[in-house]
């Protein structure tokens, strides 16, 4: 049963990812981006990390996808599609894929059976974030503030020009 679920989610995610990489209409590609992240979030649920899956939907689909769609809108000149697809990119991508598959199949991974599913609880994640991982949390806070101020400054219009 879970193999069937895995197969469906994998096919959906990879199809959406291919759509993002190859569709010529920009809006459709941006919307497939959101569908792809839904698929990735489903993978996280399957693997037992539910909190990460929910954060993924929240941050990527609720914020990053909306940002991307707005930016596509704001940077349109009257042609809808940008022509131009560089075929050498396909060659490089296939080479990278080949290399990664070779590495995965040649590695002797630990053959232990997976642990029985104990999804990590939000309580445990909160505890860890405030005890062992408190420095990364503070650094991410500073990073996000810097990114916020930086993005605002980049798009502020120069007054008086």
């Amino acid at each position, binding site marked *: 049963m879970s193999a069937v679920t895995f197969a469906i989610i994998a096919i959906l995610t990879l199809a959406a990812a291919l759509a993002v990489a190859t569709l010529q209409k920009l809006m459709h590609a941006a919307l497939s981006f959101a569908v792809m992240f839904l698929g990735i979030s489903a*993978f*996280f649920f399957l693997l037992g990390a539910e909190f990460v899956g929910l954060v993924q939907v929240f941050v*990527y689909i609720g914020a990053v996808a909306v940002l991307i769609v707005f930016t596509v809108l704001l940077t349109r000149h009257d042609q809808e599609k940008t022509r131009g697809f560089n075929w050498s*990119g396909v060659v490089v*991508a296939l080479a*990278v894929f080949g290399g990664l598959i070779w590495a995965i199949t040649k590695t002797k991974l630990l053959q232990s059976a997976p642990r029985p599913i104990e999804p990590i609880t939000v309580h445990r*994640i909160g505890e860890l974030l405030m005890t062992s991982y408190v420095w990364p949390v503070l650094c991410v806070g500073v990073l*996000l503030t810097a990114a916020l101020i930086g993005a605002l400054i*980049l798009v502020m219009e120069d007054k008086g020009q």
Partner: protein
Amino acid sequence: MTLSIFLIVSAALFCIGVLAALSRRHAIFILIGIEMMLAAANINFIAFWRFAPSPAQPIGVMVAIFSIAIAAAEAAVGLAMVIAVYRHFRTTNVDQLDQLKG
């Protein structure tokens, strides 16, 4: 549902991200390709956490959470740059953004 199949799917997603970043000519889609690569790496982290031997360290989950936050910040700044560049050069086709002179 073995570890290898998850790694293969995440490798495929990574390579499609490389494809999007290298072969599209619109600046925003290059950023989208980078986001896809980051997401594929997140799947790797969580898959290794799930299939680790029994006293499992939650490090994979923690790194994935921080990675999502950092990717969002990077997307915001990258898209702000794309808007600023568009205002100046009136184009988002990266083939035409090839001069340092403004």
